[in-house]
């Protein structure tokens, strides 16, 4: 079943249109306040948009376009929502929590518990069946929340940063589990973590300020990001401008020389992407070499692995601590970021 959504909500500056193919998992990436949770709340029926429509296959979730006024209640939608917090019902055992969905769908107590036990086993939590939520660790509770959502047999699974509240030991386990159970399911997962997008999603959508700023197969978006947010996630510097031969001209009129895999027509919008490791930092301007040079003021310095990451003018450079000390870098200093043309990828925006 294909999932379609069009929705606008003026009060939150939200305007999104998206589709999911059957059995496709899409990762929603975006900064805080971009409208990611709003998106899931609208799909789940917890928040009513101004206009729009949504459907799973032939089944309409809501239709508020034009004169239509169909708004189906959350319990009829088949869109189980799993949040950052596990939100297991505190008065029910793990087993009864997982049995909640089947029970609500009309299964007998025995059937519901059998289904629940199946899903608990599926998330390696069979031994926790009789525990109360208060007796579970964060990772255990979140695994049981996954089982609870799956036991409701949703046509579309909505996951709102399921790994965000977990410690670094519990997160990898849940990520592996999700990879296993999401195979063959239609799901939307909100995440801050590039690893989740790589491991779990077929496609990513970048949401910024209530709008989709970029979407495409995970690999493409991360290798050739077009939005600054995606570039940040992929760990790349991004400069936007107009394509001009083998480079781009920025809005400030600076030419950035690079290389492109395919020939691209001049005059269209394009981006230049390069990794921080390709950037050298100089105190004076270099002339006469086929390089790009950006005059920037340093905003921050921070440790990054065994390197020092220099943030300046919206770009970043990785240099060795020794080089940083030799140059005497400090926030506020004006320096030159120099990048070889061969290290810069040019592609259409």
């Amino acid at each position: 079943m294909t999932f379609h959504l069009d929705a606008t909500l003026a009060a939150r500056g939200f305007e999104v249109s998206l589709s999911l193919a059957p059995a496709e998992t899409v990762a929603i990436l975006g900064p805080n306040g971009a409208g990611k949770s709003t998106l899931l709340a609208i799909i789940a029926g917890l928040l009513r948009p101004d206009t729009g429509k949504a459907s799973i296959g032939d089944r309409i979730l809501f239709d508020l376009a034009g004169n239509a006024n169909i708004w189906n209640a959350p319990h009829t939608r088949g869109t189980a929502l799993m949040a950052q917090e596990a939100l297991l019902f505190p008065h029910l055992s793990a087993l009864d929590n997982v049995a909640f969905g089947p029970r609500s769908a009309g299964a007998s107590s025995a059937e519901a518990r059998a289904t629940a036990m199946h899903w608990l086993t599926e998330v390696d939590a069979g031994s926790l069946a009789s525990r109360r939520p208060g007796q579970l660790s964060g990772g255990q509770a979140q695994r049981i929340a996954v089982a609870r959502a799956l036991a409701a047999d949703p046509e579309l699974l909505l996951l709102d940063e399921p790994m965000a509240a977990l410690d670094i030991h519990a997160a990898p386990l849940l990520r592996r589990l999700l990879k296993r159970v999401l195979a063959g399911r239609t799901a939307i997962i909100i995440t801050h973590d590039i690893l989740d997008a790589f491991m779990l999603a077929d496609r990513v959508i970048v949401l910024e300020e209530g709008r989709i700023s970029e979407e495409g197969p995970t690999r493409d978006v991360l290798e050739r990001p077009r939005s600054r947010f995606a570039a940040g996630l992929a760990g790349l510097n991004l400069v936007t401008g107009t394509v001009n031969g083998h480079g781009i001209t920025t809005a400030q009129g600076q030419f950035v020389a690079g290389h492109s895999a395919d020939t691209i027509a001049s005059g269209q919008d394009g981006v230049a992407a390069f990794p921080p490791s390709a950037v050298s930092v100089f105190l004076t301007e270099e002339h006469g070499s086929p390089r790009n040079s950006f005059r920037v003021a340093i905003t921050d310095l921070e440790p990054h692995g065994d390197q020092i990451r220099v943030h300046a003018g919206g770009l970043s450079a990785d240099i060795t601590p020794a080089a940083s000390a030799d140059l005497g870098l400090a926030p506020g200093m004006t320096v030159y970021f120099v990048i070889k043309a061969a290290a810069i990828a040019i592609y259409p925006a």
Partner: protein
Amino acid sequence: MNRRSGSGYTGIPAWIYAIASAGALFVLLPLVAMVAKVNWPQFIPLITSESSLTALGLSLRTSAGSTALCIIFGVPLALVLARTPFPGQRLLRAFVLLPLVLPPVVGGIALLYTFGRQGLLGKNLELAGIQIAFSTTAVVLAQTFVALPFLVVSLEGALRTAGNKYEAVAATLGARPTTVLRRVTIPLVLPGLASGAVLSFARSLGEFGATLTFAGSLQGVTRTLPLEIYLQRETDADAAVALSLVLVAVAVAVVGLSYRRRHTGAAPEGAAK
């Protein structure tokens, strides 16, 4: 004052304890004075006299009835006030809470002009052959009128504290609203509902003014324990004191029982984290 090892910094200045002690004494001293006044040799005969037992039985029955009514009307009221914003909500809340600050005798008069023989609804009820004023039903209504706000306030607070995150999750798992209410909302706020019900019961048990105005003081029909105590005070002070002590004992027992149950009930949930 907690000065045991392992206790943390409280931030309470020492003089606060002195004033708090005075406040506690203010509540305790009258009870002690009353206990001191009890005629112990005659205590059992006094409280087991026919009129006393009738009044006590009537009080317990009508209080149970009005607590049931408070739950039936109070739970939906609290849900509506806590969960769904609507125009006039603040006004509705103010009116539901009005009996808390209204003198009970005024409540009684209001009820009389509603359900009394010449009252707003009473006239029609009278035609249908139903007479409410000065009956046991009137006692239950009077007690419900004054006790309802206690349940609503207590439950609305519990509902707001619990939030509706669990309800939202339950709905996305396919539970229809009635199922969510029965299996998620009510169990989550059960401690708040229980304490609200206990407060309502205690308030009903002590109700005097509205009952006297709206239901009168007919032995076995509308003369509840507080009315019996007031009546006995005129003729037999010893009986009044003995019955007062019974009322205090019942109230302490009810509050104590519910307090213990809430504590043992709530402990396992928060314990592990």
